[in-house]
């Protein structure tokens, strides 16, 4: 970046960002950017956005339907006027400088006009050329003219140029005849686009493990060896077997399945030394679902280490293992052979050195994640550096920045990671772009517009009922067609149908069409839950010219098919009852006026550690005022206690840099030695009282970020506190920073992992302790190479590139020995105070307990969250059983709390490393700035309404309203109540207490609820 560029006015700075890759990370970052006021060009190589997540059946740990939670985002991106989706497109070159890039994009022809295609599918039907269906891992066929998957966005077909008979041999052309819309364009040409953008976000996802590696384990050689992706498609209702898990060789249900972990990961022979970080989780998910499909199926999982280190992951794994009776074997991936009488013979060695063999019906290979196949092309095009594994090179303290300023990286291309971490990074990168381009915010965006609302006040109710199969999530239990048929005869219903996925983009189009065609004026969708999907359907209603309050949802998945899985008849009856009650309520719904409320354009950040300071800076850089509250006198938090990161840099230098920036930032006000004593209000209008050194200060802010952090667990185990030889990893860090870290007599160091964690005092895994032990072990070995170090562990959770440290540690001669939770190491004091402690542990290979004298025993203790209860109560947000704040959605809203306008990051969310904390803090800052950037909020119009004819002015409502949102006023001589709609939150206490039933609630009316009660009784 040259100085002239920086100094020149913002007028030539672009307010647009290019996102390369349309998977969940790319789509999320596009939505976040749009929400922050930027135009987005979303590039996708294939014919549709959605990426790998669209191909998953379920997601770990909740076994939520993957497409169901993704589809609303795809639809939202598809209908956002500020997101331009460029499919079949690749970034070729990137010239210029941050703020003023010129991106050259090559867009391959679709041969079917996106604008004209209605998505009817006639072209596929008539197409003569069969090709493998990539969406279904080529386990099924599609045609040269096709759509990638049923819920694809854009909802438009395209032609595979390599396969098409007309394009290659000038024959056929049947699709052009079949297409009623006349959308086929055989003369479509590749185009090159020059697009000016201010920043670029790389989100190309990951590549597949090569076929050679897979073949080592029988894939491609033996029919019944499946890749995990293939198995995923077999599980899925929209997959090649309609959701039946069948052995490819004989189409029978396998009764004995083996899951092999670390295929193409942690494997020097294929160059992938790193851990892929997701396979342990998805294998447990797939194994659980295989059991769900066939409760008699026996499942064995082969692990090197079980790495379920994410928030709540250990608990989910333990429950799945227990409930499904999984057999878990610690072994390197077994050898796979075909045996003559059918079946697959697996041979493996266990940690006690013994060899085993056994026959299985089917084998699933948990393949790892690689850098994208075209990583080097991408690097060349954008001028960014790659690491040795061809992932984008990033730094611990700038985890989302590539080597080229203005180019960011998110998702698996930054390093193997799961969906929540990818979504988090998406939010973080959007915030960084918004900070970099804050001068150009809103310069290239347009406001979303909806057709004028139809006045339905004089119309008779005309209800449309849409019943969703949700793949097999609902349809596998509830008899969906019979529910739809039942709805047909309900009073007021003029139209009913059932859909495979009601939330897909094509269904939204269908909904709009149906509303127009049948002049519907109320909509009932029987599907998952209004908590996640109501906004999507309400937006569709607005597209159809209907007020969004004319919508009602029947929850027939989360509260029906999923909780009555073994009672299909009872579940079907319950679904019918739910639909009947929803329709009864819908008849009483009326259009409600929307209100826009102003937003106080500033943020409150609670906690001045790494997370809080990063969040504050990222918000302030976007142009908004921030108040940072820290309870200690100094900023910096727990990070100051780390004396080195895994690359040997000093974290305190980074903290010092952050503190200086925070202190000098014109838009950040710091209150240290301060405590939050009260928070009230709602998104856009919070009021917080802060006690600072005896005085109290009132702060008005629009949003709040909670970064209250955590602290180390305080051990009482293993003689900690009573022997000077026993210390924690943080104690060791401190020593390692001293001039003479080790007494010269030190010969043997022992480290014990999981002290207090994973079911000891704390039920969870603290994620960072394995990495810390490796780092400190390597530091010790570097200091004193002849030092003997033994690390006693349960599972070495050196996920991602941290696996390099594990390998280095072993190469340096550090000894690793696994202990079982029911056979923990034992520590006894030496004779004198300064004599070594004795550590005994069970050695699997020797099949006996061994004892070593440790000159130093280092305990790897976990992380405890700082007490969240007080804040949680003030804000009315939920915390988990482990006292971490509970995010709004574990997969797709990982930094949002359930209360709008509140966000969480850092250790208050869950244990995490520094780079993860920074990315999460940036994400929280990005999400937090969305209401601020928008400037107004539109709360749900579910407010109270007083009937002045019935009101007797008693004042009970005024007395009980928790928000002072209802007031008594004088109407001539009589007293009457009235609602201040801007303050009303819609709780309904006033209505429940009004002596004359003069108050009613929007959408939750007396008549509506009474209708639901009476409809309930009709069942």
């Amino acid at each position, binding site marked *: 970046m040259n100085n002239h560029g920086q100094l020149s006015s913002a007028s030539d700075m672009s307010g647009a960002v290019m996102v390369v890759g349309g998977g969940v990370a790319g789509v999320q970052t596009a939505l976040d950017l749009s929400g922050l006021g930027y135009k987005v060009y979303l590039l996708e190589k294939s014919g549709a956005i959605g990426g790998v997540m669209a191909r998953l059946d379920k997601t770990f740990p*909740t*076994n*939520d339907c993957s497409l169901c939670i993704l589809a609303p985002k795809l639809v939202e991106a598809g209908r956002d006027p500020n997101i331009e989706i460029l499919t079949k497109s690749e970034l070729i070159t990137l010239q210029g400088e941050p703020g003023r890039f010129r991106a050259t994009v090559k867009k391959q022809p679709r041969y079917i006009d996106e604008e004209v295609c209605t998505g009817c599918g006639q072209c596929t039907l008539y197409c003569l050329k069969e090709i493998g269906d990539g969406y279904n891992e080529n386990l099924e066929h599609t045609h040269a003219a096709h759509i990638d998957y049923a819920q694809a966005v854009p909802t438009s077909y395209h032609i595979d140029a390599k396969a098409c008979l007309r394009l290659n041999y000038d024959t056929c052309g049947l699709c052009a005849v079949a297409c009623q819309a006349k959308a086929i364009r055989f003369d479509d040409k590749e185009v090159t686009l020059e697009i000016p953008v201010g920043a670029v976000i790389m989100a190309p996802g990951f590549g597949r493990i090569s076929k050679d590696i897979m073949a080592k384990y029988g894939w491609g050689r033996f029919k019944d060896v499946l890749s995990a992706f293939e198995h995923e498609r077999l599980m899925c209702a929209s997959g090649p077997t309609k959701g039946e898990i069948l052995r490819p060789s004989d189409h029978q249900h396998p009764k004995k399945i083996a899951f092999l972990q670390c295929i193409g990961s942690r494997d020097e022979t294929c160059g992938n030394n790193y851990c892929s970080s997701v396979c342990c989780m998805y294998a447990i998910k797939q194994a659980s679902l295989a059991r769900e499909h066939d409760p008699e199926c026996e499942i064995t999982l082969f692990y090197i280490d079980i790495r379920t280190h994410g928030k709540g992951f250990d608990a989910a794994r333990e429950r799945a293992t227990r409930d499904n009776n999984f057999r878990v074997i610690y072994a390197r991936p077994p050898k796979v052979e075909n045996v003559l009488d059918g079946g697959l013979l697996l041979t493996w060695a266990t940690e006690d050195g013994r060899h085993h063999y056994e026959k299985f019906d089917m084998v699933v290979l948990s393949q790892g994640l690689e850098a994208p196949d075209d990583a080097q092309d991408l690097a060349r095009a954008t001028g960014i550096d790659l690491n040795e594994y061809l992932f984008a090179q990033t730094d611990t303290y700038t985890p989302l920045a590539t080597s080229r300023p203005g180019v960011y990286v998110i998702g698996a291309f930054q390093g193997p990671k799961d969906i929540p971490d990818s979504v988090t990074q998406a939010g973080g990168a959007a915030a960084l772009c918004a900070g970099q381009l804050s001068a150009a915010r809103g310069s290239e965006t347009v406001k979303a517009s909806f057709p004028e609302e139809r006045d339905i006040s004089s119309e008779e109710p005309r209800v449309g009922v849409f019943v969703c199969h949700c793949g097999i999530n609902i349809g596998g239990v509830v008899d969906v067609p019979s529910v739809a048929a039942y709805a047909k005869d309900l009073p007021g219903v003029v139209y009913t149908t059932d859909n495979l996925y009601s939330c897909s983009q094509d269904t939204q189009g269908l909904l709009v069409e149906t509303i127009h065609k049948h002049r519907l004026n109320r909509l009932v969708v029987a599907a998952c*839950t*209004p*908590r996640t999907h109501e906004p999507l359907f309400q937006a569709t209603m607005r597209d159809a010219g209907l007020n969004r309050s004319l919508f009602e949802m029947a*929850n027939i*998945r*989360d*509260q*029906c098919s*999923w*909780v*009555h*899985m*073994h*009672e299909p008849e*009872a*579940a079907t*009856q*319950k679904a019918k*009852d*739910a639909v009947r*009650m929803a329709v009864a309520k819908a008849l009483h719904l009326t259009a409600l006026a929307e209100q826009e409320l102003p937003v106080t354009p500033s943020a409150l950040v609670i906690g001045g550690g790494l997370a809080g300071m990063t969040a504050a800076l990222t918000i302030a850089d976007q142009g908004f005022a921030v108040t940072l509250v820290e309870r200690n006198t100094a900023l910096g938090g727990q990070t100051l206690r780390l004396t080195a990161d895994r690359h040997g840099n000093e974290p305190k230098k980074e903290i010092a840099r952050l503190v200086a920036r925070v202190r000098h930032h014109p838009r950040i006000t710091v209150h240290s030695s301060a405590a939050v004593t009260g928070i009230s209000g709602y998104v856009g209008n919070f009021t917080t009282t802060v006690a600072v050194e005896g005085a109290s200060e009132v702060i008005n802010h629009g949003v709040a970020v909670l970064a209250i952090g955590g602290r180390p667990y305080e051990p009482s185990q293993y003689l900690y506190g009573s022997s000077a030889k026993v210390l924690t990893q943080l104690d060791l860090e401190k020593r390692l920073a001293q001039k003479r870290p080790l007494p010269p007599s030190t010969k043997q160091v022992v480290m014990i992992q999981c002290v207090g964690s994973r079911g000891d005092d704390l039920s969870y895994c603290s994620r960072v302790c394995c990495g810390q032990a490796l780092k400190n072990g390597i530091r010790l070995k570097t200091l004193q190479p002849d030092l003997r170090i033994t690390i006693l562990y349960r599972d070495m959770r050196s996920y991602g590139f941290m696996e390099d440290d594990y390998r280095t540690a072993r190469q340096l001669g550090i000894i690793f020995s696994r202990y079982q939770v029911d056979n923990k190491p034992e520590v006894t004091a030496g004779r004198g105070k300064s004599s070594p402690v004795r550590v005994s542990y069970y050695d699997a290979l020797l099949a006996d307990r061994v004892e070593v004298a440790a000159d130093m025993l280092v305990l790897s203790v976990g992380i405890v969250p700082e007490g969240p209860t007080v804040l949680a109560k003030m804000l*009315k947000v*939920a*915390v*988990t059983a482990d006292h971490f704040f*509970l995010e709004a959605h574990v997969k797709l809203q990982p930094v949002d709390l*359930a*209360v709008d306008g509140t966000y969480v990051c850092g250790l208050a969310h869950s244990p995490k490393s520094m780079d993860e904390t920074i990315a999460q803090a940036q994400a929280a800052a990005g999400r937090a700035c969305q209401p601020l950037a928008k400037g107004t909020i539109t709360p749900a119009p*579910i407010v109270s309404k007083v009937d002045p004819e019935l009101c007797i002015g*008693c004042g*009970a409502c005024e*007395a*009980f309203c*928790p*928000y002072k949102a209802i007031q008594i006023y004088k109407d001539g001589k009589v007293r009457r109540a009235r609602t201040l709609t801007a303050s009303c*939150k*819609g*709780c*309904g*206490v006033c*209505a*429940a*207490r*009004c*002596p*004359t039933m003069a108050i009613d*609630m929007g959408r*939750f009316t*007396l008549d509506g*609820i*009474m209708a*639901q*009660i*009476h409809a*309930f*009784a009709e*069942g």
Partner: protein
Amino acid sequence: MSGQYSPKILGFLCNWCCYTAADSAGVGRYQYPPNLRVIRMMCTGRLDPSFPLEGLASGADAIFVGGCHPGECHYIDGNYHALVSAALVHETLARLGVNKERFLIDWASAAEGPNFVKIITRFTKQVAELGPLGVAEGGNPAELREKLRAAAETARGRKVRLGLINASKEMMKGGDFSRQTIAGLVTDKCAKALEALDTGAL
């Protein structure tokens, strides 16, 4: 529960805690008896005292109200007001000779899917043991439902509601939100208005 009576249970769940807990029970695939039908409300504070009575009058064997834990209401104190309405329902049931166990108000936070399942499983079992409304009570079910309908009407009447306002005011003033105290307040303030239920006036 084969062979046992399968009761009809109507639930009023608040959006923020119990409804979310019910959803998360689904996400976790926790299984429970399929007897509950749910009406979503933003807050249990919306619970009109007549709703549960109307539900029982209309054919429910039992009513469940689920909200946030005391002190954790999304709207600050809506669930305390719900306890006032609940006390009136219990008082009414007692006066009509309906088993009080047919009405339950309980809490599950958004993070407590398994707790929700436990509550519903236990409640369903308990109501199944009671059997159909009226039968366990040893009266004429149809007559009982008529009385319940009249009681719902009474709960919508000005007299009872003024009593509830006074009870709510004293509860807020006193700051004691125990069920026992609230029940005492409601009995005290609404006794007169409820007298009609005891007499042959119905």
